[in-house]
């Protein structure tokens, strides 16, 4: 079976599923969930088919059908299947299927259960469309659609204002980044007259586009990625996005949508590469982001926030990886993180489901009560920390190695940031693990292990998180071949780097164990760092800056001021002109029409009846004045005749 040829079905199937759920879901058994799952499952099967064909060595397949002609612009719709896409297919569909199944349990009894599945499937389809897109516009369509799905799902429990606030924040923040993205598309279109990414990159590589334009285009596109992938300084929305249901966080805000930025950079790697500066920017943004996010993760009490900052940090890793080591390095981390992070989120969901709270301070000692959750969460934590041979270890190592190899100023900065972040990651993941599962239970009620429908996906993802990295291990090296073609060489294992990365990971975990190993300490050291803690708890005051510096001013004073201008100045000018015209006509009437009349007496005289008698002498309306006017007119005419006009 030629899976490449039918790859266009991959995004379509979940979309169809979504529509079916939306329109007939309520009336079907299972309230629509099975339909959605079926759609995603079918998509997964196709993805696997594509994946194995790709492994089998099949090259790039690109097919674009003509869709629109708008003047000189030709827009196609189609598919591009290559290693990058195949890997993304698998990550997206696997995680999505796992989340769909898990949600049947997690969302059981929700008011908008059906709607939830419809949105989830819609998201999956949109994400797959983004992945499959051969041109920028199609990519943009997927890009925006996943954004709105994210909005819908973050705000799923919109009865709470906080949730809808978070949803709006997420949408608007990413949309701000999209300003750059759209302009980047416009710029590249202007330079190349095509939307096709392959053609654009070929032109860029061939030097047909001026270097400055390439850089500008790439940087503009990267703004989009900064928003979508929650990179500094637009990362602020992602922690808030945890307001959505946990499975949604796992799917959208850990494994898939947020990786779209990384994916986009990888997809357009040659474009970024033909402008070295753009690539360096990507790496530097990654370096900054990974560090500041990791620091933030250390002070969180909400387990989902810990994971959220961890996600930001790891996305930054990916960015740095793409920036320094090429698409393979970054996407490899994306791939392993996809499984690991969704595993952790679903695990966290399981915990939350059990204790009805997101807060680590209300957990503790759950190891015994929830063994499956614990085991899988442990796998995830170790993976995140970078303990071999778990999947994330290989990919993280690859990136640190790439940084080391890259050298130069940027390489060194990224290397240091990556190592420090590795330590911090191990520490905060250990902190979360221990606070949740060790010590005494600090919450309410009697937590129980989650049902199989939830633990099942956990197990599956745990297995994947454990072993999926092997394909990219230096001694296998398959992953870079998939992505960069057969010619890509596997980088040799660098023992020093390997030792360093494992070392800091172990150190971090041990430090965490030292502090949190027996449950929550009386004084959490991360919260006792004085000024630093204050800065971290307040998220570097960035939220405040945005909210108080931009959003509120625009929302209130600026908007009000503009509106005031509208009402008072612009509208006022119109009304003023009208008033002026009235005054003027009044003047004309009073003075000119009553020409030769003693005074300006008019309707006022009629209105003020009592004055009438007194003003009688001034009244106009006397016939002889009319006659006088006629005679005066004649006299003037005679004068004009005499002067021969």
């Amino acid at each position, binding site marked *: 079976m030629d899976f490449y040829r039918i790859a266009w079905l991959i995004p379509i199937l979940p979309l169809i599923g979504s529509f079916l759920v939306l329109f007939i879901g309520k009336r079907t058994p299972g309230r629509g969930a099975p339909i959605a799952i079926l759609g995603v499952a079918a998509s997964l099967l196709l993805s696997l088919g594509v994946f194995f064909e790709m492994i089998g060595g099949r090259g790039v397949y690109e097919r674009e059908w003509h869709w629109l002609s708008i003047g000189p612009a030709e827009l196609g719709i189609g598919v591009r299947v290559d290693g990058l896409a195949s890997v993304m297919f698998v990550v997206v569909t696997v995680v999505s299927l796992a989340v769909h199944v898990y949600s049947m349990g997690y969302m059981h009894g929700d008011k908008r259960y059906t709607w939830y599945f419809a949105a989830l499937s819609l998201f999956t389809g949109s994400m797959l469309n983004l992945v499959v897109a051969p041109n920028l516009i199609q990519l943009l369509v997927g890009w925006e659609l996943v954004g709105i799905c994210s909005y819908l799902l973050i705000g799923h429990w919109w009865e709470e204002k906080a949730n809808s606030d978070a949803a709006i924040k997420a949408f608007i923040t990413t949309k701000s980044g999209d300003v750059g993205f759209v302009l980047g598309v416009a710029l590249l279109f202007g330079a190349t007259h095509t939307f096709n990414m392959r053609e654009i990159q070929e032109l860029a590589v061939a030097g047909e586009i001026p270097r400055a334009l390439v850089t500008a285009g790439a940087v503009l596109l990267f703004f989009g990625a900064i928003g979508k992938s929650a990179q500094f300084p637009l990362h602020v929305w992602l922690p808030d996005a945890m307001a959505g249901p946990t499975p949604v966080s796992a799917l959208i805000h850990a494994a898939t949508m947020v990786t779209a930025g990384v994916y986009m950079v990888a997809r357009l790697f040659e474009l970024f590469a033909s402008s070295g500066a753009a690539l360096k920017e990507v790496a530097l943004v990654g370096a900054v982001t990974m560090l500041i996010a990791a620091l933030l993760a250390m002070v969180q009490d909400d387990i989902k926030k810990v994971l959220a900052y961890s996600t930001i940090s790891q996305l930054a890793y990916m960015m740095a990886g793409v920036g320094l080591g090429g698409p393979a390095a970054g996407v490899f981390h994306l791939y392993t993180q996809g499984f690991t992070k969704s595993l952790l989120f679903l695990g966290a969901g399981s915990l939350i489901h059990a204790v009805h709270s997101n807060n680590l301070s209300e957990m503790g000692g759950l190891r015994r009560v929830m063994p499956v959750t614990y085991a899988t969460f442990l796998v995830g934590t170790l993976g995140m920390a970078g303990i071999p041979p778990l999947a994330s270890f290989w990919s993280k190592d690859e990136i640190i190695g790439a940084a080391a190899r890259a050298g130069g100023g940027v390489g060194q900065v990224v290397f240091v940031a990556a190592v420090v972040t590795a330590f911090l990651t191990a520490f905060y993941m250990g902190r979360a693990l221990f606070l949740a599962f060790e010590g005494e239970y600090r919450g309410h009620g009697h937590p129980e292990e989650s049902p199989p429908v939830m633990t099942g996906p956990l197990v599956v993802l745990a297995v994947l998180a454990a072993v999926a990295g092997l394909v990219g291990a230096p001694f296998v090296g398959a992953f870079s071949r998939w992505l960069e073609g057969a010619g890509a060489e596997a980088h040799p294992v660098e023992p020093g780097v390997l030792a360093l990365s494992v070392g800091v990971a172990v150190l971090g975990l041990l430090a965490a164990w030292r502090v949190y190993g027996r449950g929550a300490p009386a004084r959490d050291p991360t919260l006792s760092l004085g000024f630093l803690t204050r800065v971290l708890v307040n998220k570097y005051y960035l939220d405040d800056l945005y909210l108080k510096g931009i959003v509120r001013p625009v929302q209130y004073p600026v908007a009000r001021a503009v509106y005031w201008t509208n009402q008072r100045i612009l509208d006022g000018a119109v009304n003023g002109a009208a008033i002026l015209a009235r005054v003027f006509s009044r003047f004309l009437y009073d003075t000119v029409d009553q020409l030769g009349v003693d005074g300006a007496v*008019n*309707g006022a005289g*009629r209105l003020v009846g009592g004055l009438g008698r007194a003003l009688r002498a001034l*009244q106009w*309306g*006397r016939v002889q004045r009319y006659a006088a006017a006629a*005679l005066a007119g004649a006299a003037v005419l005679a004068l004009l005749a005499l002067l021969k006009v």
Partner: protein
Amino acid sequence: MSLPLHFPLVLAAALFALGAYAVVARRNGVLVLMGVELMLNAVNLNLVSFWAYLRDSLLAGQVFALFVVAVAAAEVGVGLAIVILLFRTRETASFEEADLFRW
């Protein structure tokens, strides 16, 4: 025996101006009508003078003047009727007090 043409023309102009004065300046409606008569007489004087100067075969000036007299009679008739009507409704023949319309 002859007469410069402009003599009667200037006289007519003066008569016309006097009539105009009466129309504007006299309070009593009947006196105003007298002013109108003076103006019309000025016109007739013009017509007749020009006829005498032109001696056109159609006697246009004289005939015109005749018609003016007839029309003047009609107008005086109507005018007096209006004055009487005004007097009947307002108890005055003074045009100055006909001022019901103000704006």
